[in-house]
């Protein structure tokens, strides 16, 4: 058998899961969709003493429309997000980005919470969370913390979660009326992790950009939000020059590294190219465009 031995628990309530997590020590791991953790077990890169399978905790799954925000439970499958009409309408950026996550059979099992907690630098869900300033709702036996994306994603595969804490939901702000969103990505093959992916959302009112959100995956140790690029667009008419200035800012603020898939210089170019694609797409979808 490939994975190492572990104690396996399948709690049915959140309290039971949090107790197990608190009492099992730092070697315990949460098992959500397993699409990142099980490969690591099969390679024996991960050797947890205890696995806490949260798939049976019903209260962790589901999509709830809470007025201004959409609250998505941690174990909500990526496939459920991709087929949700509510997500398509209220957080279209997440909806579009989800199609770029791996392949359909992997999204059948993979969860939003697993992707966000795993914090792979090339993963799409964390980039969307960064762009929209989502709130990560984290719970332990000690209580609840609500952490904004800017303080949640720290480094490669590193988040602000404490060992006894579980991500229980992610709260996304609903898209404002008249705003447009688009996600653009390039990878070696369909379904592979991104070489560069850019999430953009623009709100235009009276012909001027009232709000701009731009973040990327694959071009830094964690999802990056590009404030300089957003500033280049704000109050502009969102014409080609403003978009070019924003793309230049994205390239300048990217922090890519060389690896077997692409050089850092190439990834930086791709970041600008994907920003151009995403911004043009978002602008085309925004109402009130000049």
């Amino acid at each position, binding site marked *: *058998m*490939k*994975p*190492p*031995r*572990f*104690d*396996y*628990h*399948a709690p049915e309530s959140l309290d039971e899961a949090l107790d197990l997590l608190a009492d099992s020590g730092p070697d315990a791991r949460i*098992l959500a969709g*397993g*699409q990142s953790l*099980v*490969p690591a*077990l*099969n*390679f024996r890169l991960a050797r947890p003493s*205890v*696995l806490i*399978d949260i*798939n049976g905790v019903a209260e962790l799954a589901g999509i709830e429309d809470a007025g201004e925000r959409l609250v998505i439970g941690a174990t909500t499958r990526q*496939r459920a997000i991709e*087929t949700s009409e509510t997500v398509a309408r209220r957080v279209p950026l997440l909806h579009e980005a989800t199609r770029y996550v*791996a*392949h*359909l*059979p*992997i999204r*059948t*099992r993979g969860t939003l919470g697993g992707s966000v907690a795993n914090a792979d630098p090339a993963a799409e869900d964390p980039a969307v969370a960064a762009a929209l300033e989502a709130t990560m709702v984290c719970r332990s036996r000690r209580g609840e913390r609500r952490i904004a994306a800017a303080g949640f994603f720290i480094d490669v595969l590193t988040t602000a979660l404490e060992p006894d804490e579980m991500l229980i939901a992610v709260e996304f702000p609903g898209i404002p009326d008249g705003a447009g969103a688009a996600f653009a990505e390039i990878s070696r*093959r*369909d*379904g592979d992790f991104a070489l560069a992916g850019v999430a953009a959302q623009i709100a235009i009112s009276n012909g001027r950009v009232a709000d701009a959100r731009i973040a990327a995956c694959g071009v830094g140790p964690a999802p990056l939000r590009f404030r300089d690029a957003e500033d280049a667009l704000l109050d502009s008419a969102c014409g080609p020059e403003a978009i070019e200035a924003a793309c230049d800012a994205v390239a300048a603020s990217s922090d890519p590294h060389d690896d077997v898939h692409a050089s850092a210089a190439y990834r930086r170019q791709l970041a600008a190219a994907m920003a151009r694609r995403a911004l043009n797409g978002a602008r085309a979808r925004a109402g009130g465009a000049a």
Partner: protein
Amino acid sequence: MTAKRSVTVTVNGETRTGEAEPRMLLSDFLRDTLGLTGTHVGCEHGICGACTVHVDGEAARSCLMLAVQADGAEIETVEGLADGETLHRLQQLFSKHRALQCGFCTPGMLMTALDLVRHRPNLTEAEIRSGMAAVLCRCTGYEGIVHAVAEYASGGER
């Protein structure tokens, strides 16, 4: 808690029970415990797709699920497709379009394609190409596979 547990699944309509340590993968449970070797195992880390089966009606990698997680689930494997000696329509089309050579990827291709066609109405060729990229084939070059899935999808079959 590392001890073996009893796992009961419905495989291709038949209730089957076996013992599994928590660390046993569903792919190994199907092949070694239940003797259903139609499901192939290539990479065992989610990349190749040869191990794809349906779990409660949707395609999933059986090498990325623990057998204990499948307790109570309905599983469909490639063995469930043919009706006696009569191949499933998609299998017939794979044969017609020469969509297989060595056959190693074929179980995963079939289960992936069936899920795709069932859940995505009006598939375009681009969507078929992107969807079938979920499974690696080192023989055919994919053209025959794309043609077989396209003909199956256009037949209105589900």
